[in-house]
């Protein structure tokens, strides 16, 4: 086995930001910023999203308005701030101010005029697509499964085209692969065989005529616990590996009225993220670059460091999956940035020393692939193209587990999600065929079972479609069968006997007993529009997921069978992962934003903490006129 100890490279840090922040913090004092948000009729806007960014900072802090329209930020340092307040059906309001003492804002939001849909989160748009007939429901199902695998639903659905325009978009998309690259020879049978009816349906929903979309069952904006959380979003610097037209992203999703941004070089790529024990968030960079494999952000200051594995021709290896072991060590899979002859491997970052190393499986084994996890026995599991590899950090050796089924009559089984469970076994998912694989480390064997088709979607298909899909070979795992579960990524409960699978295409979790292998399905609150991607389980057995189709995450409590949806403050998050860090001071939920190149940290506040903050606010400002509870 080849083990490479790499030279860790501190690539660049925006030193001027750091020095300004350090200088400022030396003199800064904590203040409270609070206020209330109402509409033009004076009524509170429940769930209004209020964001703050200090001048020169790369950290955005966001809170939400409660049932009285009130909001209060956690203590922040005094200084010059940019504030913006938003609501799904309201016009964004921006206010700049300088605060040396506690600061109160009364914000009035005007109703959004014109096309409100453009600023809505993807799941609201997906859910509102018409389904007045079985054929409309069939088209809605196709869009839900085929237009969310690579981007949030809001990216296409923010646009309005006539049928001819949608035909051109669909034609283009049929040639785009799952990482966004155009290939004129690519075939997408699903789009091509449904082109005419898909284009007509989309034009009916998002075309020149009055829309057939139905928003009457729209879910609620954040309220209760979901309105008490605090988000801190960290801007990851734009990749300057090559000359850039924009060093900042002018539309980074913060102002919803500009819609969901497009994807292009340098402005995307933050894939997985984990918090360490020392106040940093680490992330993988899943885009080819000359500068970055993984990055680190300071939670307190937003200071950024980039690290890379060098490749020939000046490229930096990409990274994709990331996990944290019981000792706080960060593991990630490293893969070539498009260069032939570079073998992927398993990366290790010790956050304490910032020493990075790379372990490459021997040539007799499969190479590493995209996702990674640590089991309760401290072994690191990483996917391979045809199975999974188990790495022992002590002996630094790999063990290769092959998927029982690698090839079927309709193509290769693509391995994507993975988890290491409490028994020390690995689980990995053949996503495009809904195959669940698992190891038996005692016998050193691998086994599998297949999740059944989604019955709701299957019932919508015509006989002609069923016949067509018998010989359908998907061009990639994001072009599924219309009835696919879409077993994408997964997580293990290390304090329990379950693994949970995010079934992205059918909008549910598969809940699997690691001992009996018995499984059941748990639908999300809206399976057509809230589609789980990755899964993380906290110590209370609560199951967290990032909804890939929209700008939201969800938590499922298996004891009460209840879901809670938490809205993310940015439009176009396109999150591919979620992780948690539970410490004495509370839990943090970490959410990387792929499309808008940020990392977010969500923390919790209970009602008593907010009341205490409001009390402190009132006592410090004698003339503060906070609305009374």
């Amino acid at each position: 086995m080849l083990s490479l100890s790499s030279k860790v490279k501190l690539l660049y840090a925006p030193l001027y930001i750091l020095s300004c922040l350090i200088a400022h913090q030396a003199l800064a004092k904590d203040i409270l910023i609070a206020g209330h948000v109402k509409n033009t009729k004076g009524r509170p806007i429940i769930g209004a999203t209020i964001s703050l960014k200090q001048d020169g900072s790369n950290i955005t802090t966001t809170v939400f308005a409660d049932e009285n329209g009130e909001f209060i930020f956690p203590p922040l340092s005094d200084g010059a701030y940019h504030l913006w307040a938003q609501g799904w059906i309201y016009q964004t309001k921006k206010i700049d101010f300088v605060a040396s003492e506690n600061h109160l804002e009364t914000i009035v939001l005007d109703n959004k005029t014109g096309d409100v849909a453009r600023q809505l989160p993807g799941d609201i748009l997906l859910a509102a697509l018409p389904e007045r007939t079985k054929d409309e429901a069939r088209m809605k199902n196709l869009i839900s499964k085929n237009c969310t695998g690579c981007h949030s639903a809001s990216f296409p659905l923010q646009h309005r085209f006539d049928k001819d325009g949608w035909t051109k978009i669909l034609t283009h998309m049929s040639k785009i692969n799952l990482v966004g690259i155009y290939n004129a020879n690519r075939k997408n049978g699903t789009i091509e065989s449904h082109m005419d009816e898909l284009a007509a349906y989309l034009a009916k929903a998002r075309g020149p005529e009055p829309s057939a979309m139905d928003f009457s069952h729209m879910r609620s904006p954040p309220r209760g616990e979901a309105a008490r959380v605090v988000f801190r979003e960290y801007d990851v610097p734009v990749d300057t590996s090559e000359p850039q037209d924009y060093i900042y992203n002018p539309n980074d999703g913060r102002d919803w009225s500009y819609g969901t941004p497009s994807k292009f070089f340098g402005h995307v790529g933050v894939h997985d993220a984990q918090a360490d024990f020392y106040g940093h968030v680490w992330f993988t960079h899943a885009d080819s670059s000359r500068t970055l494999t993984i990055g680190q952000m300071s939670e307190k200051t937003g200071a950024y460091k980039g690290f890379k594995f060098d490749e020939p021709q000046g490229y930096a290896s990409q990274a994709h999956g990331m996990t944290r072991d019981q000792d706080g060590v960060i593991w990630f899979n490293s893969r070539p940035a498009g260069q032939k002859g570079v073998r992927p491997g398993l990366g290790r970052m010790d956050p304490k020393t910032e020493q990075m190393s790379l372990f490459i499986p021997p040539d007799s084994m499969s190479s590493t692939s995209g996702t990674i996890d640590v089991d309760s026995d401290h072994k690191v599991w990483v996917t391979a193209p045809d199975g999974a590899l188990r790495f022992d950090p002590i002996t630094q050796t790999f063990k290769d587990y092959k998927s029982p089924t690698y090839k079927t009559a309709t193509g290769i089984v693509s391995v994507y999600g993975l988890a290491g469970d409490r028994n020390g076994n690995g689980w990995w998912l053949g996503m495009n065929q809904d195959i669940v694989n698992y190891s038996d480390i005692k016998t050193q064997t691998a086994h599998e079972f297949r999740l059944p088709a989604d019955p709701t979607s299957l019932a919508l298909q015509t006989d002609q479609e069923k016949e067509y899909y018998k010989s359908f070979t998907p061009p990639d795992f994001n072009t599924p069968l219309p009835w696919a579960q879409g077993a994408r990524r997964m997580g293990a409960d290390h304090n329990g006997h379950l693994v949970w699978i995010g079934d992205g295409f059918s909008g549910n979790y598969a809940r699997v007993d690691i001992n009996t292998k018995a499984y059941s399905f748990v639908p999300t609150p809206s399976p057509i529009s809230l589609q789980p991607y990755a899964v993380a389980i906290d110590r209370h057995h609560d199951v967290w997921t990032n909804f890939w189709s929209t700008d939201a995450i969800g938590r499922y409590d298996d004891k009460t069978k209840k879901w809670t949806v938490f809205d993310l403050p940015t439009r176009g998050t396109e999150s591919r992962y979620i992780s948690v860090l539970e410490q004495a001071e509370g839990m943090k939920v970490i959410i990387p934003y792929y499309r808008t190149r940020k990392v977010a940290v969500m923390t919790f506040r209970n009602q008593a903490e907010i009341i205490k903050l409001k009390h402190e606010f009132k006592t410090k400002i004698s003339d503060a006129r906070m609305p009374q509870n």
Partner: protein
Amino acid sequence: MRQLWLLALPIYILSAQVHAQSALTPRQQEGQKILMTSCGLCHEKPDILNPAVAPHLSRSTLGGHVDDIIAYIKTGSNVMPSFKYMYNDEQLRSVADYIISRPDEAAEGHKANDKK
């Protein structure tokens, strides 16, 4: 010495770009945001290894004639949809104003690729 230069480079680029960004008029900034939302998919480079599938948009686009650019976006082409249902004339003018503020081939690799 070379390493010191490398360290300074990002700061230099950052400063230069901050300057370039602030040099845009409010209308051009508006157009830039629209371009980032609706045009980037085809007209910007998708990653470091692949060119954009559609021509780079710059001061040379349609001879730099704002009215021609607006008309083109409203009409579309055999591969590009019409954006007339999405953006009004004022918004399209801001896009055109921004496009003609951009240099030719600003970013290496932005070469027009007329494979379609």
